[in-house]
């Protein structure tokens, strides 16, 4: 069973439908016990970092997610959910993240040519930097769907894939059992469904 963490941010309909499509059992839940009982956790999110981080803390689920991740349970952050995994975000001030992956989330705009539009929105090709199990069905050049204005930097060896958009945009990260996708696998056609399938096939590390 996969727990999709519901902390009042964003629309979880497509994510739930996509997991159903690949035959995975998933539950959308804001219940700490259900998240602890699940084999895997997905942390979704859209919108502004500070709002989402505050909502996650207000529910107390931040500590549940951190504890489960540290215990070795596979955790996948998607879009803003991935950004929350890092130490901090610089979106409208400095805000602390969950600190599960070293790095910071910063504005894309100053790092890319001015003729490129922000948000980075649309289908872009992945460049695999590592053969990580999350990307086992993905090859470099496969396109996935992005919608974001900030991106993760200084992630060091955690970056497993990037996408070229005036700079090498961090597209997927992994540090042990903690993983993240900046793009939306649930909106990325067969490539995205295969990434979710690969996540479902992972085993706990502890």
């Amino acid at each position, binding site marked *: 069973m996969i727990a999709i963490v519901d902390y009042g941010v964003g629309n979880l*309909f*497509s994510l739930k439908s996509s997991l159903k499509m690949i035959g995975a059992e998933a539950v959308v839940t804001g219940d700490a016990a259900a998240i602890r009982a699940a084999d895997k956790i997905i942390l979704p999110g859209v919108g502004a970092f500070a709002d989402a981080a505050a909502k996650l803390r207000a529910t107390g689920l931040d500590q549940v997610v951190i504890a489960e991740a540290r215990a070795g349970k596979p955790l996948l952050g998607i879009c803003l959910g991935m950004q929350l995994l890092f130490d901090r975000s610089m979106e409208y001030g400095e805000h602390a993240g969950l600190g599960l992956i070293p790095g910071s989330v910063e504005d894309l705009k100053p790092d890319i040519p001015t003729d490129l539009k922000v*948000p980075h*929105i649309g289908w*872009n090709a992945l460049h695999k930097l590592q053969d990580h199990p999350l990307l086992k069905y993905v090859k470099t050049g496969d396109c996935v769907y992005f919608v974001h204005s900030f991106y993760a930097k200084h992630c060091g060896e955690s970056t497993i894939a990037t996408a*070229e958009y005036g700079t090498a945009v961090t597209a997927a990260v992994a540090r042990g059992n903690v993983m993240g996708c900046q793009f939306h696998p649930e*909106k*990325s056609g067969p490539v995205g469904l295969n990434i979710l399938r690969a996540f479902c096939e992972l085993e706990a590390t502890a």
Partner: protein
Amino acid sequence: MITKRIIPCLDVKNGRVVKGVNFLGLSDVSDPVALARYYSEHGADELVFYDITASHEGRGLFTDILTRVAETIFIPLTVGGGINSLDDFDRVLKCGADKVSVNSGAIRNPALIGEAAKRYGDQCVVLSVDAKRVGSEFRVFAKGGREDTGMELIEWVRRGVGDGAGEIVLNSIDTDGVKQGFDLEMLSAVCEAVSVPVIASGGAGCAQDFVTLFQALPKVDAGLAASIFHFGEVEIAELKAMLKENGILIRS
């Protein structure tokens, strides 16, 4: 880099997909869920669903269909038609839409764009505009192209983007249904005026029209069409192969 998008548009009335020619004379084409699945499996980069139902009953039917479509396809889904309030945004987003397109609703109440952008983010708000040449200017039309608003196109899209619209769909009434190609002149004017993605709509008659569009106007992000896809006159896979041969970046 970001690929150019090919977007089939499905006009839905009373649960069926229809396509108007110059907005008059609707003809039933097919089942929306089956069509959506077909397009999703055959290379469409995104789908647009327009609810052109007027009745309350039809609206409920549309919402049911939308939910079934969103359960079936895993590419971005934009919904428009009858979006007049934040409640309407809420209603279609809950059914699985990713973006919501406003047209007449924003003309009646321009504050809707800003309110929706604030609540759901700019990326969620698409400003769809029907425009037509009147005298020497491009004029915005409301109610599916039937009513001249008197507003000038460029002024309107600039205002919409300023208020938070994250994308523009420009439908030229002059070229819509004529199948002689997109309205490059009108599109060019809009691309020069705004910095958000612009989706070209109205006039595609063959695959070459998309090649011409992206070659002539590299700033255009996407091409949208309905009947040529629904009637199989243009297959998306063949269209994409042709775009690729012409050096246009697409998702294969």
